[in-house]
């Protein structure tokens, strides 16, 4: 297709309405299914269930059709323009220079039909600003090339075709094979996954209580009595079952999410493809990366792996909010080094000045770790058993908090700053001074007499704090941050 074809307002692929229909139906079911399940057992409502269901399907189908018909997009010389809405018209203009990244995704049905979804992320939104439900793969590739600025809208058709076809020609920086994928699955948060799976099972079983309750009532009395007496014996098998379920869910979810993961650095972009049922293809321009965030657990580090989150500018405030970025699991040290060399080429870990927190942090961590003993002492009283438990806990936490304290450090080479924290759950963040937005100094009445302070570095992708460092160091870092930001004339985003 010629780039001129994008200058006229056009609709998505006709199958986009199916995607919108399924998405809206899923949202409806997710929001109202407990109510629907409850009503289904009422005989009065049950007889109308077919009519209600048909009504919902027809209305949803009509809404999806309207959404598809009135959604049109086109490109001007410097912006993507989207018109949508039937009764309430909306016109969205996204300048190309505000686009942070363009991601492609393919669900199973889209893969079968040769279609693609396209998400456009901008610095002004927390997540994706615009989501194309279904485009021809060729159209999606061309649109992505135009939106990411690799091809200009007035370029010849050949340039657009060459650019959109040059995928997977570069040797990958890393790939996840089955063995590595299994390792990634094994090092997931099993407790969280197990609880989610348990919650899902209970949510499904609860509305069906009438059925499984009747089934349980069919048990002979002696079996029920035996179960009631032997519940203590069942605790261990239940725990084993829970652990097995949790690990199984972790491995399967890692498999579905990161299947055939392939990471490439081509020219000035980082490209990541992964997914089994839904194939995602992320591309982030290297110059737009604001922050690199490595996270690992003790087990993951023992296997030589880390997870890296690459963040771009986002609209949400401080840290926790989900912003624009991508996650790369199963990264080895060599891969991390190559990514850092590509994204922050000036960072030199050989020439750094280090900053460590004061020992006050260590005692603070230890005291906080002892807090759970207070409610326990109220429950069990000051008995000998409690004394033994408290002493053991104290000794254990004394050593673990020392390790945790040793994990806190920050270092800078003048271009970038690396902030590290944690031991069991370790986190490392690398950002560049000149990309910062502002800098804050914090101190409370407990820190003041000890001469300590925190320094918070605010980037467009979130904030990171260097904690409990001497006031002189905090002020020096603040002055340096201001100097680097204010003396930098280039583009920071």
């Amino acid at each position, binding site marked *: 297709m010629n780039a001129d074809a994008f200058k006229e307002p056009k609709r998505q692929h006709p199958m986009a309405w199916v995607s919108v229909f399924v998405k809206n139906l899923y949202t409806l079911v997710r929001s109202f299914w407990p109510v629907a399940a409850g009503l289904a057992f009422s005989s009065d409502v049950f007889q109308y269930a077919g009519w209600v269901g048909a009504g919902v399907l027809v209305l949803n189908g009509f809404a999806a059709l309207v959404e598809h018909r009135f959604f049109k997009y086109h490109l001007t010389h410097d912006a993507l323009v989207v018109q949508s809405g039937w009764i309430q018209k909306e016109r969205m203009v996204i300048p190309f220079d505000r686009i942070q990244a363009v991601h492609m995704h393919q669900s199973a049905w889209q893969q079968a039909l040769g279609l693609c979804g396209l998400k456009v992320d901008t610095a002004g939104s927390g997540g994706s600003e615009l989501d194309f439900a279904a485009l021809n793969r060729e159209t999606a590739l061309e649109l992505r090339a135009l939106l990411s600025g690799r091809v200009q809208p007035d370029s010849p058709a050949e340039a657009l075709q060459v650019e959109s076809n040059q995928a997977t020609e570069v040797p990958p920086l890393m790939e996840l094979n089955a063995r590595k994928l299994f390792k990634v699955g094994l090092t997931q948060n099993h407790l969280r996954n197990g609880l989610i799976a348990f919650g899902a099972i209970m949510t499904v079983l609860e509305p069906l209580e009438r059925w499984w309750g009747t089934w349980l009532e069919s048990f002979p009395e002696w079996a029920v009595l035996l179960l009631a007496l032997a519940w203590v014996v069942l605790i261990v098998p239940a725990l084993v079952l829970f652990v097995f379920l949790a690990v199984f869910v972790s491995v399967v979810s890692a498999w579905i999410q990161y299947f055939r993961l392939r990471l490439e650095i081509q020219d000035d972009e980082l490209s990541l493809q992964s997914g089994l049922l839904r194939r995602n293809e992320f591309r982030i321009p290297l110059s737009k990366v604001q922050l690199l965030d490595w996270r690992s657990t003790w087990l993951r580090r023992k296997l030589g792996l880390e997870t890296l989150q690459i963040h771009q500018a986002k609209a949400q405030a401080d840290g926790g909010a989900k912003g624009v970025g991508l996650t790369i699991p199963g990264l080895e040290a060599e891969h991390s080094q190559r990514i850092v060399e590509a994204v922050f080429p000036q960072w030199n870990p050989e020439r750094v000045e280090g900053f460590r927190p004061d020992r006050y942090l260590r005692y603070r961590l230890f005291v906080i770790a002892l807090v759970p003993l207070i409610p326990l002492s109220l429950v069990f009283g000051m008995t000998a058993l409690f004394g033994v438990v408290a002493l053991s806990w104290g000794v254990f936490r004394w050593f673990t908090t020392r390790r945790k304290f040793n994990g806190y450090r920050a270092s800078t080479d003048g271009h970038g700053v690396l902030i590290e924290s944690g031991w069991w759950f370790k986190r490392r963040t690398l950002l560049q001074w000149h990309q910062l937005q*502002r800098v*804050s100094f914090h101190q409370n009445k407990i820190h003041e007499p000890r001469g300590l302070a925190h320094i918070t570095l605010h980037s467009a992708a979130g904030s990171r704090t260097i904690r409990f460092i001497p006031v002189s160091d905090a002020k020096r870092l603040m002055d340096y941050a*201001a100097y680097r930001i204010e003396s930098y004339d280039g583009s920071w985003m």
Partner: protein
Amino acid sequence: MMEDFENKVLRTEHLPHIHDEEFEKLPVRYRNIRWAIFALVAFVSLSLLVGLLISWRMIEPESFAWNVFLIPAALWAVLFGIWALSEWFGFDRRGYLTRERDLSYRSGWLFHSLTVVPFNRIQHSEVSQGPVAKRFRICTLKLYTAGSSGANLQITGLDEDVANQLRQIIDERNER
């Protein structure tokens, strides 16, 4: 061209520092408004507490017990004591500093903070003023940088003219 090239050693101790004594304070009338708000909230909450106590004594004198009110009264005293101390000592720590390339704002007594916002990172600025603030000719200057949906620096209690001057300085610096 090579002769113009310089690469001097940069020492962090030679970088410009932010000195506490250079900060400009907020107008006294803003301090008075803050004390007035403190007095109003303290009076209303104390009245509610005393009202509850009197009502209980009048409605059910047989079950009335003074000591039940000791904990809420102590909590009230601690809370408003801390608030009063923060107002008394904290106001003088509020202040702003405009340098050639950035704007700094410091505040807080129990929890002290100082934020530096370089002019070249400000996306836009805003001056807001409610009806009470308008009566006393004070307003709030809000500065927005990238990476956040809300104001990143908010200086409340600025004199109207000063706020507009600061905004003008920011606009001029960003236009360069």
